[in-house]
């Protein structure tokens, strides 16, 4: 890694002497490799604290600029291996959250939902919470209380969420919002390889000859990865994009397959059919490294290109083109994301992509392999250490007696005390509706915006007798709670995250939290102490939790035991498994051809395409699909408060093809079986005529998730966000288009920080192309 050119301008980068660091910062040594003798304090006393972005699964390195008073006030690009100085608009603006006026700085509480939330002392909030936990569990059993965590939390905290639920609350009901992210890919990877992570580092993209992006809108969701995609293209690699929309990356693709949403497995089965027909399979690789090939081969025989063309609504020739490009390439890679994962057959979609890579031998080599792109910063790490309903730390199964015994030894409890597997996030909401779960603690998640079928979610939460929420802003979900605990933001604590490569990176503390704010770790430990389990939660810092996590993962596939904070700061990140402190980590899997199954082989799976859960009919003939915009992150609780990002994408829209006769900005009503909402139309040829797209970062009355269906993949339990039946209608008047809602308690960011230089568009957002053609 080269030295960061920031060293040249005289600002302090690495305060090696902690006594020179402003209050609240630590003496970090940057993994960027700045020589120790190159730093010195400048006249302003500014310090650059090396850390990573809080948002997506790329985990770009960045410096937070800290002033002499110890306050974060800006960002500076960082020459980290992952992003090499690049940042997207979310990363550039992320620092503005830290001292944002909307920050919660005191606990909020009400004893019933008839009351308003009011500021209370920590003692009162904790006492009420603990008494409600006791009451509900005594009256209705331990499993009547649930915990929902978040995949934006550091891994230490996600580890603690799992332990907190099972040891302090003794409930089986714990899950997390990563359930809405990449669990379909996780399920497929476990089935095929028995390891839940991507096979290759991002840098392998630069080495590939053919890059297949399936349902991955890299330009908007993972913009910094585009440099790798363009790097591959510079070398002459073929770029294949499978997406119903012409995304920014699809625009430049050699082959853009604009298939109908919900038909991915039929398409990939047909591609494999052609690969077999044309004799392009790698039979030697299959014979040595795969099981199930004959069954898969027989199954895909039913998917000739003509059938895929009919199901997917694409030309049959595209199937042949993709098959030849992928199979003939000396090295090919496939990356997928929510586009093929957010389905009732999300796991199966991913398996068909894995089948392609396996059948062509594109696995386990530099420039050849597979990966999934994680939406949340710790979407990968957030599920590794026991936050998921069926998993214990280290990815152990909660159903496996040996695994249970191992963890109980570390946690100091009897195996009989450890609860059974719980249910998934959406299922927990259904249980809340049925009053099977009567109390809930949510930790940094916002299901009111992020879960499908808002009416069901609202009813579920309204039915709970007690709801507490940890957050640093008052989200739509927190506004529903009885107790809101104000907790630290990412820049106010240290901890690790695992990015989409399974590279563990370290976030550093840049400033002290505001007075009245505690870390999530402290709050969980304090509730546990009050419930009489304090001896098992005697953690004073993230480092202490991480040390227990390392021990708890030792000997598993997800082995963190060789990863230490010091090593992470020295190396810039280590990919697991890393079983010892002298082990370099594992950036690329299966280089020796063996997987983590007992037989060492890839277990290929037969996949039969089936239609989406929400059937089309005369009233609902079109497809509604949802997704993200580059300016906003997930439920928007963070990004909808940052002026520059709000200005960039102020409101959602309905993207429709010109053939429907809408003018740009005209109100369009989108109707599904869950309800209807009105959006300004964004008329563009970049979408299929039978499809309408709405970005999902906003709450009702402009919430895409008020319209989506809460049908789940039977294996991964991921909701089918990417396809439901709908129709579109002309709405009567422009005033039917509701104003973009603001989060409860929202205060606009100070004008001096973000000033507007261009007028906002009247109704539709900038970009994505606009047209009045009909």
């Amino acid at each position: 890694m080269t030295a960061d050119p920031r060293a040249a301008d005289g600002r302090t980068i690495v305060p090696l002497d902690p006594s020179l660091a402003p209050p609240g910062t630590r003496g970090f040594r940057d993994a960027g490799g700045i020589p120790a003798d190159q730093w010195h304090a400048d006249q302003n006393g500014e310090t650059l604290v090396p850390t990573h972005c809080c948002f997506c699964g790329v985990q770009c390195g960045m410096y937070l600029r800290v002033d002499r008073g110890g306050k974060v006030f800006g960002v500076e690009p960082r020459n980290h291996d992952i992003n090499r100085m690049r940042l997207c608009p979310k990363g550039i603006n992320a620092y503005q959250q830290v001292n944002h006026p909307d920050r919660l700085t005191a606990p909020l509480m009400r004893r019933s939902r008839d009351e308003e939330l009011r500021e209370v002392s920590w003692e009162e909030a904790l006492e009420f919470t603990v008494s409600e936990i006791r009451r509900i569990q005594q009256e209705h059993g331990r499993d009547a209380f649930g915990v929902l965590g978040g995949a934006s939390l550091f891994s230490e905290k996600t580890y603690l969420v799992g332990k907190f639920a099972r040891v302090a609350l003794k409930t089986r009901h714990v899950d997390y919002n990563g359930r809405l992210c990449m669990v379909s890919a996780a399920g497929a990877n476990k089935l095929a390889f028995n390891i839940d992570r991507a096979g290759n580092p991002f840098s392998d993209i630069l080495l590939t000859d053919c890059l297949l992006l399936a349902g991955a809108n890299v330009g908007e969701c993972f913009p910094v990865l585009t440099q790798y995609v363009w790097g591959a293209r510079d070398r002459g690699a073929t770029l294949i994009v499978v997406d119903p929309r012409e995304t920014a990356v699809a625009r430049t693709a050699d082959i853009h397959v604009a298939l109908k949403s919900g038909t991915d497995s039929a398409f990939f089965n047909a591609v494999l059919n052609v690969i077999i027909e044309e004799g392009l399979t790698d039979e030697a690789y299959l014979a040595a490294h795969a099981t199930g090939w004959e069954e898969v081969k027989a199954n895909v025989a039913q998917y000739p290109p003509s059938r895929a063309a009919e199901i997917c609504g694409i030309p049959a020739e595209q199937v042949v083109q993709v098959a030849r490009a992928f199979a003939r390439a000396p090295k090919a890679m496939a990356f997928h994301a929510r586009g093929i994962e957010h389905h009732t057959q999300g796991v199966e979609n991913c398996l068909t992509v894995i089948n392609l890579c396996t059948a062509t031998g594109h696995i386990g080599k530099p420039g050849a392999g597979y990966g999934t792109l994680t939406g949340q910063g710790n979407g990968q790490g957030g599920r590794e250490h026991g936050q998921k309903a069926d998993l214990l730390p280290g990815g152990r199964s909660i159903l496996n007696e040996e695994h249970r015994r191992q963890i109980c030894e570390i946690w100091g409890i009897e195996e009989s005390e450890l609860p059974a597997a719980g249910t998934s996030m959406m299922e927990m909401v259904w249980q809340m509706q049925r009053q099977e779960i009567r109390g809930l603690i949510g930790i940094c998640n916002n299901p009111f915006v992020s879960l499908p079928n808002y009416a069901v979610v609202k009813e579920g939460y309204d039915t709970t007798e007690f709801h507490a929420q940890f957050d640093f802003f008052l989200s739509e979900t927190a506004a529903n709670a009885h107790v809101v605990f104000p907790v630290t933001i990412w820049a106010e604590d240290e901890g690790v995250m695992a990015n989409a490569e399974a590279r563990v990176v370290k976030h550093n503390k840049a400033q002290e939290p505001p007075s009245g704010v505690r870390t999530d770790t402290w709050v969980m430990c304090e509730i546990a102490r009050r419930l009489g389990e304090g001896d098992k939660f005697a953690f004073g810092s993230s480092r202490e939790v991480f040390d227990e996590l390392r021990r708890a993962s030792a000997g598993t596939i997800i082995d963190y035991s060789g990863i230490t904070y010091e090593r992470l700061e020295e190396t810039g990140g280590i990919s697991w498994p890393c079983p010892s402190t002298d082990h370099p980590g594992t950036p690329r899997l299966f280089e020796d051809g063996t997987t983590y199954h007992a037989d060492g082989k890839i277990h290929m799976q037969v996949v039969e395409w089936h239609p989406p859960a929400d059937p089309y009919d005369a009233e609902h003939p079109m497809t509604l699909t949802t997704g993200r915009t580059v300016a906003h992150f997930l439920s928007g609780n963070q990004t909808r408060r940052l002026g520059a990002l709000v200005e960039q994408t102020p409101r959602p829209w309905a993207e429709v093809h010109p053939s429907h006769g809408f003018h740009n900005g005209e109100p369009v009503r989108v109707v599904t079986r869950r309800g209807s909402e009105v959006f300004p139309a964004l008329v563009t040829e970049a979408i299929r005529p039978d499809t309408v797209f709405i970005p999902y970062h906003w709450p009702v009355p402009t919430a895409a998730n008020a319209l989506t269906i809460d049908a789940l993949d039977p294996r991964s339990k991921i909701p089918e966000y990417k396809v439901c039946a709908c129709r579109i209608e002309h709405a009567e008047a422009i005033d039917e288009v509701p104003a973009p809602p603001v989060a409860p308690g929202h205060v606009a960011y100070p004008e001096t920080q973000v000033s507007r230089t261009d007028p906002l568009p009247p109704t539709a957002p900038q970009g994505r192309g606009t047209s009045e053609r009909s």
Partner: protein
Amino acid sequence: MMGRTMFIDPGRCIGCQACVSACRECDSHRGKSMIHLDYTDEGSSVASLPTVCMHCEDPVAPCAEVCPADAILVTADGVVQQADTTRCIGCANCVNACPFGVPKIDLQAKLQMKCNLCYDRTAYGLAPMCATVCPTGALYYGTVEELQAERPGVQVADTFVFGESEVRTGVAMVVPAERVQWPVPGGLPVVEINGKDVRR
């Protein structure tokens, strides 16, 4: 040919506006962005490109030439600075003169503002903030040789024709190699590629 400068490559732009956000963070005009993001084929394509100051070299910066208050300085290394706050009268002559539509006027402050190639950074040998963060390399800062080493076969243009006037700029634009005789994006005919006259 130019030395260390900015290159714009529309083929790589994903319209993410990281450049716009980054420009707001630049210390020389903190809080305001001097970059426009333009959509070249609205309604049928998502194609986009960032517009930054082209730092005209010949004739020397039309904006500076027409400034009645001598508020716009061109440095020895060819960077056309934003207006001097003590001299600018907010008359907008520069806005009318610029062939690329770059300068903006803050009417309240009666002040012209535009990209000054992050002089506070480039003076220290750093890349401008927008080119540093651009996730795709659509904005690139370096020499043409460095660009071509990184992107084999890339062709750039730094001379543009407006009617009968020719403008040579300090900032260059990447043009498709197979279309060197065709207009560059935006409809401006290419007259020079990598220092070579290609009109004949």
